[in-house]
């Protein structure tokens, strides 16, 4: 049995062999980096058994520690404040795009942890907003210079899985226009002027991902899995593709056989091959795993 102590960011950094990268989304001149191999995307997976309390609710302090660990490793900086300054400027107007699905939401703890570090990066409180359904009407999102994309992964009756790519669907007035062919073209959203080039960080919440849908509301507690994870990166496709591998592995473990998502989450692969939003190819993803490693699946 692994220790239930929270992982220490310094502990990890002491033992990590490579911790820095260049990303086109880093602010110019602020990165203290070692380049990734060309064509690779880096995904950070942080897991901590202590993130959920006895009622299955996230613990704020542990969430903050996981986020801080992830962002420092992702950016190659030694502290979270320095890390955030590589992706957010003090004069940015920041929209945190969450997901408010009542059964499995981004969680206030993640939103609060993000907001805390964005404030520390010098952004004024009135220039930060957290929203989901109201982004098109929200003045902060309307004039945002930076977006933080944060949501949990879950199985989805029509898209296969709810993903970071899909999380921007509320930036169009009629989301149903994305539905044909099981939401195959969701990545096209990322070319909209209100989104294009603004995403500074993607956070896929994997504390309790939902791996199977049941009933009209798609949710049943029987089909959520305590995974204790948080994934971060600049490439939403790489994170989603890695999250999808985890969901598929959980399904295999739970059902005891191959049980492909129904329908398949084709929009992730299409985001790579058609829209070139990022990479879905595991060979092109550098996955850095931190913390609890039992049942990690990837």
């Amino acid at each position: 049995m692994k220790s239930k102590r929270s992982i220490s960011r310094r502990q990890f950094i002491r033992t990590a062999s490579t911790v820095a990268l260049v990303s086109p989304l880093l602010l110019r001149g602020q990165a203290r980096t070692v380049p990734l191999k060309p064509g690779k995307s880096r995904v950070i997976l942080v897991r901590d058994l202590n993130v959920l309390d006895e009622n299955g609710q996230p613990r704020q302090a542990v969430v903050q520690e996981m986020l801080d660990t992830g962002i420092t490793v992702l950016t190659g900086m030694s502290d979270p404040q320095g890390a955030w300054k590589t992706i957010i400027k003090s004069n940015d107007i920041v929209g945190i795009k969450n997901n408010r699905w009542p059964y499995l939401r981004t969680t206030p703890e993640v939103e609060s942890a993000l907001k805390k570090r964005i404030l520390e990066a010098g952004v004024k409180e009135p220039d930060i907003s957290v929203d989901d359904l109201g982004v098109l009407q929200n003045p902060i999102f309307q004039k945002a210079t930076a977006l933080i994309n944060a949501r949990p992964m879950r199985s989805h009756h029509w898209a296969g899985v709810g993903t970071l790519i899909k999380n921007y669907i509320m930036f169009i007035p009629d989301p149903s226009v994305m539905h044909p062919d099981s939401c195959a073209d969701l990545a096209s959203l990322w070319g909209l002027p209100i989104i294009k080039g603004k995403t500074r960080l993607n956070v896929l919440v994997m504390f309790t991902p939902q791996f199977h849908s049941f009933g009209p509301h798609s949710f049943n507690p029987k089909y959520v899995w305590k995974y204790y994870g948080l994934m971060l990166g600049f490439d939403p496709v790489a994170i989603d593709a890695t999250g999808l591998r985890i969901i598929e592995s959980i399904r295999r473990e739970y059902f005891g056989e191959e049980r492909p998502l129904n329908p398949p989450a084709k929009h992730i692969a299409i985001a790579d091959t058609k829209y070139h939003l990022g990479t879905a190819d595991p060979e092109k993803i550098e996955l850095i795993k931190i913390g609890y490693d039992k049942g990690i699946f990837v």
Partner: protein
Amino acid sequence: MIESQCMKCIGIFVMSVVAIALARMPAMPETVSQFNKALPKTIDGWKKTDPPTVYAPGNLSTYIDGGAELYLSYNFKNALSLKYTDSANNEITVDIFDMGSSYDAFGVFAHTRETIDTAFGQGSEYAAGLLTFWKDRYYVSILAYPETAARKDVVFKLGRGIASAIRAEGSLPPILALLPEENLMPESVHYFHHYIWLNSFYFVSNENVLDIAGDTPAALAKYRQAGATFFLLLVRYPNGVRAAAAADKFRQKVLGGTSETIVQLKEGRWTGIQVRNDLVCGVFSANNEATVREFLAKIKS
């Protein structure tokens, strides 16, 4: 002991009241709205909150965010949604979907069914606070999260009441009758007429490689023989020409353009496809050629 017997009596009484209230309806509900009149105003301390909402195809997505397309792909007509609340504002949500036909009510129910259970309606499933069942052209969901024994009891009472109010039983899609029964895993039987659901158990293709559409009822089921599982697909086309064209497309897109009936695919598993007049039959992912041949031959005509 006496207390427990009393509770049992009260339970039976309440259940009878629900059943009587629902059974008082002069005839089977002709619209989903009529279920609202029949459902009790209160049950075990839970009060029905008004007004209920009726959803149509055009606004279902405003209610079941992300899930509406599944129902639309099964010809959804409309749905009644209402809630019961207790003194602590906990909710029980009752959704009654009119799918237009018993075929589609079965189809949408079977889409996520994991077990065979006929405790409610013509087939039901209960898991962790959510009861779903189908009867005639209706698909019903009663949801009470988080699950408690008392809430489960109310969910079951409401379920029994609604099931008894739907007087008729609907028939199953005729194409299901063609499935061989031997080695069939009955809980796996799926019915659909939208190509998206072709990949339900086994990934076939991201494309509509069999030209499945609203006028091509399809059945998909899982079989287990000698410890190995494989899948059987039947698609009925309006005519033999379309069936042959669909099979040709499948051979081109999935089987690498072969004219063979049975082929071994890259992963070492065997797949076969056969046309019988207006019916296309497929066996996927068998571990040997003989199994494919055997089960293609067993498909009823």
